[in-house]
């Protein structure tokens, strides 16, 4: 991994001749030779004679003298159908008309491979690009043109139920590692010609396909422009996951909060696009990025839109309460028990004091110990093989918690607070927001331990100020709460019934706030909103 991070600041020289092939795709702007042998040897040399480069001689029935070579990367291209088309050519009884007039490449393109994605190739750069994309290439002797046939194949994971952002009710489809499949999953939901896709390759070596998807006219042009600009600025040799893109395009402000949303769910992406957001698909990962991301978005689940409004509202409130508990519980406990004992009801204080009898550490140390223990257990459980992981995490927490209390190292109340915090943390639907909460929790614990509730509230004010100053692609992070927008608050802390949810987030799509029910005029996009 480290090698990737040591990003290549200077690109390859770009021009100049390549006496010794470097293997880097953009180093060979060199045209194809008309000699087949030259081309094959050049190819082999470029790939360092890698054995997964397959070269296979094929023959044409009506051009017996023509020398052809089928070139592909083993495992990436599915050449069966291609070979079939040669057989088909041989079995064609009728001789094509004007055979002699036709050039060989033309004949191949029009007659032999009548179907499929066919492309003429004249230089090595494109040749490598299509080769590594999974196409097969036919090299022809006597022509400085090669023909690429789309034979994308090879093993890939199918569409499965996503592991993150699980819902009880809602589609079970999740994105896969293949970009085309992912974009198709969204297109299947939004059948609108205004759903536009822009593609580019990022990563000097990995040449990773990155696609941005939006509804033309709904997505804010300024956001799009900014996104394109930020994507173009990415200078790295490899993109292995959308996390790379996220780090490059997120706001430069130092913040613990995520300003880019990610999801594995096509319905979530579709819903976001319908709200005027932009999705970024990256080849090789099921996690699709969505911008601009707002704070409220991280506490929403796509299920909120599938359940009835009253229930969804209550669940959302529950999430906000859990957010508060996950963020504040240990720090409030520390502040109150070490600075403001008079705030507690007397019998509660006596009970807490009784539990703390004989505990050798100050409450902060106790809390930090338990929190860190829990984080270790969680991380340990996460990396463990799946069957062991869960049990380790639960048993570890229970056993350590209970024996620590019995040994008198920590008080029982602290164990309760820490476990409650941990569970509340799991309620937050977005994993990256949950991580922010985990980080901030420690910060707040420290300020609470230093200056009690005074410190805690100072810390909270700092966090709130920071949240309000944050922006995601120019959109205020806390909108629609700050700045307040009455129409959009219906889908923030609460989820109003669909009948009254006629507004898109104003901050995200300022031009097109009202969702139209019936497709009419220029606004054909927004029928019903999805999550």
């Amino acid at each position: 991994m480290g090698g990737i991070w040591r990003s290549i600041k200077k690109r390859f020289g770009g021009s100049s001749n390549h006496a010794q092939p470097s293997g880097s795709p953009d180093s060979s702007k060199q045209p194809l030779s008309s000699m087949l042998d030259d081309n094959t040897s050049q190819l082999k040399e470029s790939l360092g004679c890698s054995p997964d480069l397959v070269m296979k001689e094929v023959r044409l029935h009506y051009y017996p003298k023509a020398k052809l070579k089928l070139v592909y990367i083993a495992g990436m291209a599915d050449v069966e159908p291609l070979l079939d088309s040669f057989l088909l050519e041989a079995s064609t009884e009728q001789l094509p008309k004007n055979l002699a007039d036709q050039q060989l490449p033309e004949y191949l393109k029009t007659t032999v491979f009548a179907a499929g994605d066919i492309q003429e190739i004249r230089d090595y750069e494109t040749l490598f690009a299509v080769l590594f994309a999974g196409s097969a290439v036919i090299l022809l002797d006597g022509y400085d043109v090669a023909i690429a046939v789309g034979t994308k194949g090879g093993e890939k994971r199918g569409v499965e139920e996503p592991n993150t952002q699980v819902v009880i009710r809602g589609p079970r489809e999740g994105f896969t590692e293949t970009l085309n499949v992912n974009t198709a999953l969204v297109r299947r939901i939004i059948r609108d010609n205004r759903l536009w896709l822009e593609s580019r390759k990022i990563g000097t070596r990995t040449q990773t396909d990155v696609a941005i998807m939006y509804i033309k006219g709904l997505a804010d042009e300024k956001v799009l422009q900014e996104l394109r600009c930020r994507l173009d600025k990415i200078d790295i040799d490899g993109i292995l996951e959308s996390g790379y893109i996220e780090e490059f395009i997120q706001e430069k402000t130092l913040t613990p909060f995520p300003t880019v949303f990610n999801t594995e769910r096509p319905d979530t992406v579709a819903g976001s696009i319908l709200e005027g957001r932009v999705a970024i698909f990256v080849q090789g990962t099921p996690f699709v990025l969505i911008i601009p991301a707002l704070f409220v978005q991280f506490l929403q689940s796509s299920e909120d839109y599938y359940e009835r409004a009253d229930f969804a509202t209550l669940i959302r409130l529950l999430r906000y309460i859990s957010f508060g508990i996950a963020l504040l519980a240990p720090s409030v406990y520390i502040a109150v028990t070490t600075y403001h004992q008079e705030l507690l009801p007397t019998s509660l204080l006596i009970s807490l004091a009784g539990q703390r009898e004989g505990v050798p550490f100050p409450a902060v140390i106790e809390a930090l110990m338990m929190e860190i223990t829990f984080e270790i257990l969680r991380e340990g459980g996460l990396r463990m093989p799946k069957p062991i992981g869960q049990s380790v995490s639960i048993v570890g927490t229970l056993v350590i918690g209970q024996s620590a209390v019995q040994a008198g190292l920590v008080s029982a109340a602290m164990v309760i607070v820490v476990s409650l915090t941990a569970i509340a943390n799991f309620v937050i639907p977005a994993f990256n927001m949950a991580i922010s909460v985990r980080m901030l929790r420690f910060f707040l614990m420290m300020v609470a331990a230093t200056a009690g509730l005074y410190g805690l509230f100072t810390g909270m004010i700092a966090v709130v100020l920071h949240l309000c100053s944050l922006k995601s692609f120019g959109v205020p992070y806390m909108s629609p709460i700050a700045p307040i927008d009455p129409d959009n608050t219906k889908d923030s802390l609460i989820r109003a019934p669909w009948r009254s949810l006629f507004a898109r987030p104003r901050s995200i799509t300022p031009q097109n706030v009202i969702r139209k029910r019936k497709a009419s005029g220029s606004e054909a996009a927004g029928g019903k909103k999805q999550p």
Partner: protein
Amino acid sequence: MNGFAKCLLILLIVPVLTSCWNRRELNVLGIAIAIGIDKSDGEYKLSAQIVNPGEISGKPGTGGGSAPIVTHHATGKTIFEAIRKLTTEEPRRVFAGQTRILVFGEEFAREGIAEAMDIVTREPEVSANIYMLVSRGTTAENILKVLTSIEKVPALSILNSMKASEKYWGSIKLVKLDDLLDTLMTEGMQPALPAIEIKGDPIAGQALDHTDQSDLASVLHFTGMAVFKEDKLAGWLEEDESRAYRFVTEKVKNSVVQIPCSTEGVTSLEMIWTKNKIRGYIKRGKPYVSIQIRGEANVGETQCRESLKKPETMKELQKRTNDSLRRVIEKTILTVQEQYGSDIFGFGAEIHRSDPKGWKKLEEHTWIKEFGNLDFETHVDIRIRHTGMIVDPVEESTRRTPR
């Protein structure tokens, strides 16, 4: 090192450097749940009932069979001195933020409680939510030493029984620190505090094993109110008088009154609610108040021989109730007027409020004298609403059948 790293470093160091201002862990606090103030040999004697939390909480393996509280004492020329001196005995810092009860010793109260009020209001740690009591026939120290059984912390036990007897028996009126201060500082109003006494052997009540018995060797109980003149204890109100005092001075939610029957026996009435209305003014140079008490009651128990089915009987009962209540109230006011000369009812304040011009005609700061000349008039209007699950007295029905 860039700016961010420096900031982070400073932030990380700050908590360590501050040494945590004013931080006190729970297990270094001696929670003084009740404080008693007595006077001995011209010095203040302070007693603090300090909770032994390990003994009370249900944590297994910590209950060593020792008393749930410890009482510490210290004397000093000022109360503040005495409080700080407590630490010479108590291993932990005495924490008064959770003090719920302040008991004034009888002797101390007779000399005046104003001095004690200074520190309890000046000290920021003490909450205004603290209940004030006067010990009757004993010292505050002895009150704090008595152990209780079901509620292990005596102060909480006192607090709970105080609240319960206010609510269901109506014999005392709870007074908090800020109420007391208010009263002390209002002209034309004198304080009255609940009185607590020890029933049984005060020494036996200090031993832990006395709580092992089903019949406790000594218990704390409330006997009514202590009447103060200015800040000095002047005397006591017994239970009936205290109840009358409450009917006059506040809205009572629930109380019990005994009404004698026309022949023999008594009827107990449960007062559902009463409302008081006091009008005061200066009438021909003399202070005058009219007291109106309205309310509703249910029959709680009756020994009378009359059938309650008849409207006349009910009317009669109602009339007797009103008369009897009025007599008790009048007697109480007269007693307070003549014996103690202290306006615990706040009649003066009421006159001040409703007749400020007349009040000004009185000489300044002479209300204590004027209170003796006060004329009053009492109207009681209690309606009896329900008779409970049955109407006629059971006794009446059972006797009738064999005949």
